[in-house]
């Protein structure tokens, strides 16, 4: 789902709090006006060229902006800059990314990812010369992270777009273009073109950068070299410096899988959740894109092997796993050779429904909740009286509730005039998912922004008390301090939760 009005505001707020006003101003212009050249940016921001350049460098370093140019037959090549809103929003999730790494890898890997997240892009040299541990083990950890796709090579410094927009997706080969969703926005097109090829992206083949470290390269890439035999070494030799960054896509994939598993746990049971986790874990590297609708088909034996790999899974018998699979997969999801695939899109859709319905319930009450549920499952628009009959709500109250929902953009309404012996007018109502979902997402961005602003406000209020040494915070000041700590605790928890919801609607 594309970012909304408040999505942009929230992104600008994130940049402001991370990099200050100047950078935020540049970023805001890019987000609101779309791709711009350096000259236009200077004009719109009314900053000095040096300030704009520096801001852009920061944004590029942190993967928030991607330069590109359009391949024109005539005229000079002009570099434009496009803001990558998804990457900006991911900045709020670094803590979640760190949790993912800490659950799967050792401390050293954690430190590498931390370094990469803090600095945006780093060369291998910078990573290995960081403050941590022995170089040899750092390199091993790095290798592990690259192999698991958590770290990737940075995209091309400047993507070159082909003029005709239709040609862009074809680059991926004639066969895959049918399966791969055609990128729509210029942002998506630029990202697709700038990204290194799939083989290059996670390749740790020796290059000038690692050569400088002598023997280390041979120890780290022997296994990988065989994998990428086909790649031409010359190509790499030309690259001056290879930059690495954390692969947000992989982190989002992990979080998406986690969300699916937790939803299945709530909806079905622990057994089904375990089975789904095993399925997703064994096929994670085979997934083509983050928003994949169905999990990669996998055989029963592989699933069972993975299930009993975990401690909790060891008390599941084959029959129980099969029963869970029958709950998770429809008949059409099971191939002839008994490989199973789960409809992840459906799981996430149900979770989205829950979120929206819970807003309706809290805001408009139980009757409205029932009407909303009825209309969102109904394939066609329903008439007021019919809604009242089906939800067992008093006929007089129904129009009022429906009107409220319509007024806040949760429902669509249409007037139908019947001409005949008796003239009559009917109102029919329905839920238009894309419209409602976009509206809800916008409100979520708004809520996230508000939480953040309120937290900053609370922080400002307590500043004086905060500066006092701990032993002086007694009496009313102590109470204020305690309250502030509670506020921070509640706000942070809410921020994490609301971000989960935003991911559910925006990234998954």
């Amino acid at each position, binding site marked *: 789902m594309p970012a909304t009005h408040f999505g942009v505001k929230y992104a600008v707020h994130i940049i402001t709090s991370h990099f200050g006003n100047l950078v935020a101003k540049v970023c805001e212009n890019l987000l609101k006006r779309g791709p711009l050249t350096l000259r236009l940016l200077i004009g719109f921001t009314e900053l000095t060229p040096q300030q704009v350049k520096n801001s852009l460098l920061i944004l590029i370093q942190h993967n928030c902006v991607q330069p590109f140019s359009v391949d024109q037959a005539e005229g000079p090549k002009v570099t434009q800059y496009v803001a990558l809103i998804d990457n900006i929003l991911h900045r709020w999730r670094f803590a979640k990314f760190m949790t993912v790494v800490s659950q799967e890898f050792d401390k050293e890997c954690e430190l590498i990812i931390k370094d990469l997240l803090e600095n945006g892009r780093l060369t291998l040299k910078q990573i290995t010369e960081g403050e941590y541990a022995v170089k040899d083990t750092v390199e091993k950890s790095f290798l592990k992270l690259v192999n698991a796709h958590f770290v990737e090579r940075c995209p091309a410094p400047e993507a070159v777009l082909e003029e005709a927009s239709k040609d862009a997706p074809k680059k991926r080969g004639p066969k895959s273009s049918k399966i791969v969703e055609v990128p729509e926005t210029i942002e998506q097109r630029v990202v697709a073109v700038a990204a290194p090829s799939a083989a290059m992206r996670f390749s740790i083949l020796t290059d000038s950068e690692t050569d400088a470290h002598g023997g280390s390269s041979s120890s780290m890439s022997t296994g990988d070299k065989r994998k990428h035999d086909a790649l031409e070494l010359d190509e790499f030799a030309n690259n001056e410096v290879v930059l690495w960054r954390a692969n947000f896509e992989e982190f989002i994939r992990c979080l998406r899988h986690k969300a699916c598993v937790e939803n299945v746990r709530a909806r079905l049971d622990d057994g089904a959740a375990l089975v789904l986790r095993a399925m997703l874990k064994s096929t994670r590297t085979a997934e083509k894109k983050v928003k994949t609708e169905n999990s990669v088909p996998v055989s029963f034996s592989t699933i069972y092997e993975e299930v009993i790999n975990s401690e909790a899974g060891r008390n599941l018998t084959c029959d129980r796993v099969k029963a869970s699979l029958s709950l998770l997969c429809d008949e059409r999801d099971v191939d002839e050779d008994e490989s199973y695939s789960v409809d992840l899109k459906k799981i996430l859709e149900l979770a989205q429904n829950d979120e929206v319905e819970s807003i309706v319930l809290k805001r408009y009450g139980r009757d409205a909740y029932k009407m909303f549920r009825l209309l969102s499952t109904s394939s066609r628009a329903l008439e007021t009286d019919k809604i009242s009959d089906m939800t067992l709500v008093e006929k007089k109250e129904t129009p009022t509730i429906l009107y409220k929902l319509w007024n806040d953009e949760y429902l669509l309404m249409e007037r139908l005039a019947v001409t005949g012996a008796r003239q009559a007018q009917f109102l029919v109502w329905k839920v238009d998912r894309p419209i409602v979902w976009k509206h809800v997402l916008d409100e979520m961005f708004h809520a996230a922004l508000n939480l953040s602003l309120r937290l900053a406000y609370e922080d400002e209020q307590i500043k004086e008390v905060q500066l006092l040494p701990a032993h002086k915070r007694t009496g009313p000041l102590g109470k204020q301090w305690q309250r502030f700590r509670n506020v921070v605790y509640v706000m942070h928890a*809410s921020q994490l939760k609301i971000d989960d919801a935003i991911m559910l609607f925006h990234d998954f």
Partner: protein
Amino acid sequence: MFCRLKVCNFCNSLRASSFSSAEQSFTVVLGETKNEREAPGAIPVYLVHWIIAMSKRKQPDSSSPADSLSQNERILYNVIHGKQDMGIWTRDMKKETNLPDKVFNAALKTLQAKKLIQEVVNVQSKGRKHYIATEFEPSKELTGGAWYSEGKLDKDYINLVKDQFAKMIYQQKVATLEGIADAIRKTKIFKTEFTKQQTEEIVRDLVLDNRVMEVKSTGMGEFASIQIGKVCYKCKSKGGTRGETKVGAMASIPCGVCPRISQCTPDGIISPSTCVYFAKWLDF
């Protein structure tokens, strides 16, 4: 008249049970063979039809109050009676009878006093007075159906029924519509039996309430006794109790349920720093 119906045994039984009660579902079988049909005792088919039609018609009791009506009252009564179980609105009555107001009101009063007609509440338009002949039960359109009583939705009753249904579903773990109806019948909690439609309505309401969920039988595990593909119902939470819906991320913070969120801006009159809902929420 019935004595002549000696055509076959079946007709004899008709005579025995006498035509005036509920025999609409009987079919009169005439003699099978030509000889039988033309036998001296046989009656022509049209006569049989006539006999049945006569028997279905309610014979007005000679002593009924309807007999002692004046002409105007009779006109009014006929109009109301003619609308059968749909009843009629007073203004429509006036239009159709064309009686002067005074006469009309007097006639209406008399008819009510004689208990030939009664007032009914129409759920569609409660402000309008509707009358119906006492002979008829008000139609579903008029009363709103089984869940209405005196023109109002009987919420307490509905909730009671819903709770019982949820309990039955919970006890059965996975239940089909027939299974639920059976279980309810056996408990004998309710005096009346629920029709299939009523059962469906209640279960659908439980589903909309998110207390019960609709699942399709897979024929495995808990569905073992149920045909594959059949729609079943399962309780969402323990005991199928109410009000256990999971609160979402948005609904658990003030902005998620804020009625003023559309007017809220970072520097506006309504803003996160001046927000009263935030202040209330963060009041520890």
